[in-house]
């Protein structure tokens, strides 16, 4: 069964195991393509494990080879279909835990948060990296707020709820959320 034909990887499930394979992108130069796929696969596996260690629900990794990861299949529902303020607050707590552990997710969207057994699992660490700067955390949160804004009508309430959760679990929260506002205002022409 093919789960998604996402932008980056083909994800399929075999016997309850999720196999994520970063497929070659022919639009990209082969050399650049291979570099990106290999780097992202290796980093993803490591970051998924680190996040679990920090207390954030993530899939269990079974195996890694080249640009393929085998991991636990989280058979839940994407938050983009069910998000409300209560869930958004929980997301705030999880992101706080990630950030406190020095992890930046890099692609926080409501498609990458899965509700399963009453827990929110964070998936797709393909663009994640280790960093503890306020700036990187700010961009991480900014990306999530942008998905709220671009796909959810009541985004202001969701953002408020997220901030409540984020502040609960993370002492540098105020500094990061302040930076998020700055990032939004930053001098882009658009």
């Amino acid at each position, binding site marked *: 069964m093919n789960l*998604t*034909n*996402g*932008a*980056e990887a083909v994800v399929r499930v075999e016997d309850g195991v999720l196999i994520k394979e970063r497929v070659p*992108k*022919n*639009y*990209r*130069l082969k*050399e*650049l*393509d291979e*570099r*990106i796929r290999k780097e992202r696969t290796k980093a993803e596996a490591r970051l998924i494990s680190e996040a679990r260690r920090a207390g954030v629900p993530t899939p269990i990794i079974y195996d890694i080879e080249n640009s393929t990861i085998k991991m636990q299949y989280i058979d839940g529902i994407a938050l983009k279909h069910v998000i409300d303020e209560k869930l958004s607050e929980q997301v705030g707590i999880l992101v706080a835990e990630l950030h406190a552990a020095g992890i930046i997710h*890099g*692609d*926080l*969207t409501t*498609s990458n948060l899965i509700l399963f057994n009453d827990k929110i699992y964070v998936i797709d660490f393909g*663009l994640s990296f280790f960093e503890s700067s306020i700036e990187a955390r700010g*961009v*991480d949160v900014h*990306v999530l707020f*942008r998905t709220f*804004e*671009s*796909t959810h*009508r009541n985004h202001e309430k969701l953002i408020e709820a997220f901030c409540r959760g984020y502040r609960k679990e993370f002492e540098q929260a105020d500094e990061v959320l302040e930076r998020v506002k700055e*990032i939004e205002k*930053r001098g*882009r*022409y*658009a």
Partner: protein
Amino acid sequence: MKGTVLGIEGTAWNLSAAIVNEKYVIAEVSDMYKPPTGGIHPREAAQHHAKYASYVVKGVLEEAKKKGVDASDIDAISFSQGPGLGACLRTVATAARMLAISLDVPLVGVNHCLAHVEVGRWKTPASDPVTLYVSGANSQVLAYRMGRYRVFGETLDIGLGNAFDKFARSAGLGHPGGPQIEQFSKDASNYIPLPYVVKGMDLSFSGLSTAATAALKDNSMEDVCYSFQETAFAMVVEVTERALAHTGKNEVLLAGGVGANMRLREMLDIMCTERGANFYVPEKRFMGDNGAMIAYLGLLMYNSGNVIDVENSHVNPNFRPDDVDVTWLPRDFEEGRLS
């Protein structure tokens, strides 16, 4: 859809006036500001626009008259309200207000980015596309969702064209940089690894531009130009593909001056073919900044009652496309299209 609209563009280097109706660009007259050295100087560009505003407006009215369209046939005046260089925007807005008052017709303030999208929908078969808009100042991935064009990804610092221009100036290639970089790329023999910066759905080009400049020390111009292009374009195509996957749409529209680059088109074409999406590129005259796109979105807005009073027609250099209520598309426009 009825009506005839005169629109004026002048957010940056190109001052352009056009008259359109629902079917055709009836007339278009432009005059470009060309910096003697370096890049666009905002004040000089604005002075250029002030000097040539009457020339392009008179010109477009005369040209239209030859085709049987009189000034009295014009139903509204539209202008680029932003985003853009403040001084340029103010100059063009002044010209537009004067025209609206003297012809006694409504004024329409147009978002420049959305004009690029709408002229593309007008001039290609694209209906509900993910738009990659890459120009000097702007780099955005836009798509319609729930009453607005949402920005799914964009540059966090400078536009892609601007990144090319900055590099080209440091490399002594002159302005604008894009066409020369494309030319040099054709004779490259090596790919040099450069920073590939995609942050979620957003992009950053300033570090890439600096790294490319630094790479010139040990590498040929051809190889650096090639590597710069390959890296930057792979970044924007990746974000465009992610927006396709996220929205479930199946069309891509290319807009903006950087869209003239054949390698970028090729990469988007490959990505779309592999995903089973359709890829659309308008004719070149509708890709860079042009008056026709401002007149056309002006017409759409005029027809949906989206006009402004002269008193409330101030410009907005940071005008965001997602601040605009899309009055000109039916409310159920995207129903049934989304997964």
